[in-house]
């Protein structure tokens, strides 16, 4: 979509134009729904975040300064929503894992390569909440440990250790899942 059109849509959204709002929703809803599912433990929570996130997007759209970063700006709102939900429910826990995996690196990649995204998401959702958050932010969104630390209010070390453990647990879960499927 051309930048001019996007700018026009955003401008109309600022004026609470229903058509423009629906257009923006249709553009980003599938991506954001996927994000919400990845950051939560169940579908209900995902839908709560999804709704609250879009209400905030339309409520704060006048604060958007650069239309080129629209997608990231929307994502940040949804991530913040997910984070707030976890904090509110006091479910954001950073646990240490003592799991050791015997899965060879290449083998893990092969299994993941074969897996459907929905299956991987299902496994990611089984990670402890802190790990799930850090894993999503670092691996899928591509944030640095520093940025994650600032966003979540934790230290960079915690972020790193959580990511390390998340990888280990996910690999283990991938292996278990593969065995079940076989």
């Amino acid at each position, binding site marked *: 979509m051309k930048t001019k059109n996007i700018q026009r849509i955003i401008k109309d959204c*600022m*004026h*609470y*134009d*229903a058509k423009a*709002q*629906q257009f923006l*929703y249709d553009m980003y*809803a*599938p*991506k*954001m*729904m*996927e994000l919400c*599912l*990845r950051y939560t433990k169940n579908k209900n929570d995902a*839908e709560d975040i*999804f*709704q*609250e996130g*879009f*209400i*905030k997007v*339309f*409520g*704060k759209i*006048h*604060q958007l300064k650069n239309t080129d970063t629209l997608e990231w700006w929307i994502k940040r709102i949804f991530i913040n929503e997910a984070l707030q939900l976890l904090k509110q429910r006091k479910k954001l826990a950073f646990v240490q894992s003592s799991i050791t995996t015997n899965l060879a*690196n290449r083998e*893990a*990649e092969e299994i*993941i*390569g074969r897996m459907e*995204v929905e299956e*991987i998401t299902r496994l990611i959702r089984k990670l402890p909440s802190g790990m799930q958050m850090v894993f999503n932010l*670092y*691996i*899928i969104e*591509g944030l640095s440990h520093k940025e994650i630390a600032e966003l979540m209010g934790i230290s960079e070390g915690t972020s790193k250790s959580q990511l390390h453990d998340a*990888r280990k647990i996910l690999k283990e879960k991938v292996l278990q899942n593969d065995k079940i499927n076989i």
Partner: protein
Amino acid sequence: MEKNLHNESFDKLLRSKYRNEKVQPEAYLWKNIQSQLPSAPLPVKSWHLSKVIYIGGSIIAALGIAAVLIYYFSLKPDSVSSSRLHSDETILIKQPVREKRTKNNNLLIKTTQQADKPAATKPLLGKESEKRFQLQRSGHLSLIKENTKNHLTKNSIQQHNLRKKNTTTTSGLVPIVSHITSMQSLGFPRPKITQPMSTKWHASMLKHKLTVYQAVKKENKKKKRKKKKTYIQHPWSLEIYWRPEYSYRTLASNPSYTKDVFTTSYFDKRDQYKFTYSYGLLFDYRFLPKFSIESGLAYYSYELGFSTPGTDLIKKDNHNALVYTSLGTVALNIENVDSLNTKTILSSSIGIHYLSLPINLKFYPANNLFINVGTTIDYNFSQTLNWEEENENGNFNVESGEISGINRFNISVILGLGYEQQILRNMSFSINPGIRIHLINLNRHSTVKSFPYHAGFRLCLQYKF
């Protein structure tokens, strides 16, 4: 090292898997979201065309008025001077004639009533020409009589008898006709002589009159030029001004908005006057002794105070709320919206900043006094909102975005009176109280129509060059 590389490829694999991943949400989610979104104002008429008509119309009207004034006042001095130039001659032509007959030779001489009366206005002549004109006015008849007498005594009786016989003929005037015609084409009035006289004398008389007329005309032109120079010695001047002023607005209901809560009286209770300043750098051109036009670049801001109890906010969630001002809707981000109550007063100073292009016409009815009428084309380049909150439990952190829908362009009219005082040879100072009124509604999306006005006085330094 190997571990890191593996992690990297593992991460990349996962990232690529999620790159274009989408999950279609349930349809009811959008309905839920829609029901919680801020209500959209009813569609308003396309304002682009009306804006163009407003701006274009105002510019054309301003230029038209200026052109008419310039044309009118530039013509006036000319017409005055031309009437002065021909004052004597015109009177002589227009006044009814009366006939006189000389005692001696029974010559019929036509003259005017005006010829016996003293001059009403002093003709603009040199010494010689003035003398001639005096002669014309006071003694046109006697001059002709005298000359005729002299002429008769000098000429033979035969010539006299011949002339006596030919009183009714015009044969003696034939050679002069072409001369008279050429004089008339120059605007010189037709001579009032019906008496046949010496051709030589008459020709010399008319020639002399023509010379006098040309001299008068030349002299008048010179005077006119001199006058212009003395009137407007410095037509151009550069002005810098500072204008303290109070801003407020008049409100009108917006027919495209139907919510009862946002009536004009709701905002009248909550809006407050604000004090502000404007600045400008202008060029002034004095195109006529009593008129000047000024234009340039100016900055001004429309400031409005606004306060509302916390309970009047339209809460969206725990952090977000909407507040309706007479200028439009503002989205607020507050730490904990639910904790706001009737004792919490949110107040804001809202500033709409404009760069404007003024076109101002000044009329000087007296030496130092002037009346100014003008229009400005205003461009809204920014706005500021400073929120403050009072609460017995402590302060909240309120952040807000800009008011959406504020018109980028506006047009206002300026009216004022002024006093100008010269302080140095090329410098003068003026004080100019006046008002500025916006002609276009500030925000088409607001629940009410708001037309700001400013009242203040302009302090201006003027450098003439």
